[in-house]
């Protein structure tokens, strides 16, 4: 089985290295094909490992080689395939493989086709390191690796100012959060003497409670950055500047869930600090609602889906914070399927609409793009949690978990958010695919994407529909590893009321969205209508003015401070010193070049001058030695 582990891990690396050989060359179709095949190899290996673990096999643990071995610190390049990592591996490789295939079509006309695959495969490799590592150090390497690849892919079209800006924003925000994570890791190492998961988790129970709280908080700060939780959430929406397959793979299905993975992986730690757990759950719930509210009014197709991702990440954190780790992991998996599908569908629409993102300028695309319409609608149903699609099983279990644990506020907010989710998802679908045709006035002739792109989406489509039946086997698989329990509501009546109530609420929201946006008199908003001038619309449309706040109160003062230091300190002190030294040397040379006249007589005179100086020096040293006692007593009298 070990060989499958190595194949799953290193096939993406090989793919990345291979593709990077051609980055400076014009488009080569075989690069995309080979990269896709290698990722597919990785996927097949992951599936084999998955069935092995699902069948009750022992977790596979390998140590590739020693990385750091010094003093008391021993960190190997060790990898583990257990119930948690195999789930992540399955999700990551499946979505990666499909996105690789899809990208062959999506990036078809891009001059940097080869470079795209180099970055994308490098991302897959980093993500695999992240989820397969058996210690926190390896996880951190993967963590930084995905951060780097995310930077490279958001800023893929580096000639666009907005893209580089968004890439830097994402990178910097993640670095801020990573500092928290590093502190958490240092605390862990300081207190347990190891970073290996098994060693650390066997020792956490012995630690001080307050230490554990700090560790929990700092690790979660790292997770907040990667998973874009409030207040570090702004980068995710801006990250939509990257190519759409990147958004599907990195900023919906895999990388942003790394924070959730970290919390799930550290479950023995978080089990001991329920206070932090409640904080995580509350923050998650808040973000779920907060992001969903911003998605209600947004007019950028990709941003709406990004906010929905943010909102679903909030759900996952809510579940993980409440100790329902398996539910969080299950929702992570289900979400990866339908969200990637939604993004790839959005990619098709973008292609058809020549990169137009405003859904108000689309409408009536369902005739032209039948399959994209069907897939996105089903993905939206799954996202909204309609029976019997994937979202129903995962999201409903989160609600049940909150209800059973008597966190009624969390339950209420999440339930309300579910209604919002249904509304904004179908607002988007209705605006894009239904209603009157608004794109013709912009001179756009939409067409369906290549067939193989649709085929690449088909497995996601399939899983978005049937992921629900995987719930029971999944539960049995992770039961032991995550200390999972089922959430049963005692009274049958309450259970059915909740179930049906949620469904009715969600379906009502869907109908409302359709009624409001599936009309033939929708026009492109121009900022004059009554709705658009309402205060709450403005607040939501401007994302609660948070980006504005960051820009105005953090970025600008920082920039001014930097400018001040630059002009006052850097230029006047540091630069002046360095320039001064250079100037002294230069001037000395300029002044003394007269000595090199070539006249022997003059040179001899300078030789004599040197001799005299040396004689004076020798004399001074001789005198100092001769009278050293007196000099010393004189100096001590002065108090030196």
């Amino acid at each position, binding site marked *: 089985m070990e060989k499958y582990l190595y194949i799953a891990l290193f096939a993406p690396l090989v793919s990345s290295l291979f593709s990077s050989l051609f980055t400076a060359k014009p488009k080569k179709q075989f690069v995309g094909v080979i990269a896709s095949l290698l990722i597919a190899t990785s996927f097949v290996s992951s599936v084999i490992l998955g069935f092995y673990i699902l069948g009750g096999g022992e977790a596979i643990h390998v140590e590739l080689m020693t990385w750091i071995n010094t003093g008391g610190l021993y960190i190997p390049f060790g990898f583990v395939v257990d119930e948690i990592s195999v789930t992540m591996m399955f999700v990551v490789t499946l979505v990666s493989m499909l996105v690789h295939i899809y990208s062959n079509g999506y990036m078809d006309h891009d001059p940097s086709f080869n470079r795209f695959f180099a970055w994308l495969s490098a991302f897959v490799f980093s993500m695999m390191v992240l989820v397969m590592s058996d210690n926190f150090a390896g996880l951190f390497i993967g963590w930084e690796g995905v951060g780097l690849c995310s930077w490279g892919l958001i800023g893929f079209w580096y000639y666009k100012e907005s893209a580089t800006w968004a890439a830097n924003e994402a990178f910097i925000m993640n670095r801020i959060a990573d500092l928290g994570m590093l502190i958490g890791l240092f605390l862990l190492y300081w207190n347990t003497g190891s970073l290996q998961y098994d060693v650390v988790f066997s020792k956490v129970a012995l630690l001080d409670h307050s230490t554990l709280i700090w560790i929990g908080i700092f690790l979660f700060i790292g997770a907040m950055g990667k998973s874009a939780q409030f207040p570090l959430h702004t980068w995710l929406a801006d990250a939509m500047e990257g190519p759409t397959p990147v958004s599907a793979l990195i900023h919906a299905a895999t990388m942003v869930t790394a924070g959730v993975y970290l919390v799930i992986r550290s479950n023995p730690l978080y089990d001991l600090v329920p206070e932090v757990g409640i904080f995580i759950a509350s923050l998650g719930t808040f973000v779920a609602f907060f992001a969903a509210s911003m998605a209600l009014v947004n007019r950028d197709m990709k941003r709406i889906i990004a906010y929905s991702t943010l909102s679903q990440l909030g759900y996952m954190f809510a579940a993980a914070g409440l100790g329902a780790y398996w539910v969080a992991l299950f929702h992570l998996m289900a979400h990866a399927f339908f969200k990637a599908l939604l993004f790839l569908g959005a990619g098709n629409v973008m292609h058809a609409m020549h990169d137009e993102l405003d859904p108000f300028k689309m409408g009536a695309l369902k005739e032209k793009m039948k399959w994209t319409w069907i897939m996105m609608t089903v993905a939206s149903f799954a996202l909204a949690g309609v029976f019997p699609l994937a979202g129903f099983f995962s999201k409903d279990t989160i609600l049940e978990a909150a209800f059973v644990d008597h966190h009624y506020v969390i339950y209420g907010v999440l339930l309300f958010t579910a209604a919002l989710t249904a509304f904004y998802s179908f607002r988007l679908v209705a605006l894009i695919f239904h209603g009157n045709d608004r794109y013709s006035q912009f001179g756009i002739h939409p067409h369906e994407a290549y067939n193989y792109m649709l085929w690449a989406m088909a497995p996601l489509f399939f899983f978005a529909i049937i992921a629900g039946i995987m719930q029971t086997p999944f539960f049995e698989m992770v039961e032991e590893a995550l200390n999972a329990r089922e959430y049963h509501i005692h009274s049958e009546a309450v259970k059915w009321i909740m179930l049906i109530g949620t469904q009715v609420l969600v379906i009502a929201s869907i109908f409302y969205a359709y009624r409001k946006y599936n009309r033939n008199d929708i026009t492109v908003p121009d900022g004059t209508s009554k709705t658009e001038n309402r205060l709450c619309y403005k607040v939501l449309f401007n994302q609660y003015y948070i980006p504005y706040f960051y820009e105005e109160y953090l970025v600008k003062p920082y920039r001014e401070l930097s400018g001040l230091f630059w002009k006052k300190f850097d230029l006047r002190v540091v630069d002046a010193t360095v320039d001064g030294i250079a100037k002294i040397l230069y001037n000395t040379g300029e002044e003394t*070049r007269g000595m*090199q*006249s*070539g*006249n*022997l*007589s003059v040179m*001899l*005179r300078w030789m*004599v001058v040197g001799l005299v100086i040396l004689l004076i020096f020798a004399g001074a040293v001789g005198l100092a030695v001769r009278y050293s006692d007196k000099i010393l007593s004189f100096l001590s009298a002065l108090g030196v």
Partner: protein
Amino acid sequence: MEIGLSHYLILSTILFGIGLYGVMSRKNLLMLFFATEILLNSVNIGFAAISHYLGDLTGQMFAFFVIAIAASEVAVGLGLLVVWFKRHNRIDLDEMMSMRG
């Protein structure tokens, strides 16, 4: 008055000073050689005097070395000088500027 070590050293210093002055001020290459001879011999006086004073023959041996090397140096130097004179008809130091930087 007894002639002691310090007299020899003073003589040596005076001769060194004369030689140094000659080296700096003379423009004729031949005179320059004379001045260097004075410099070398002033040092020889110092060597011999201190050698005698300390009862150690090393200093006198060094003086002989210096004399021998000075002789060969002058031989080579005069040879070059003669060649230069044949070519340029002058031996003025200020004219030898080929090493000007």
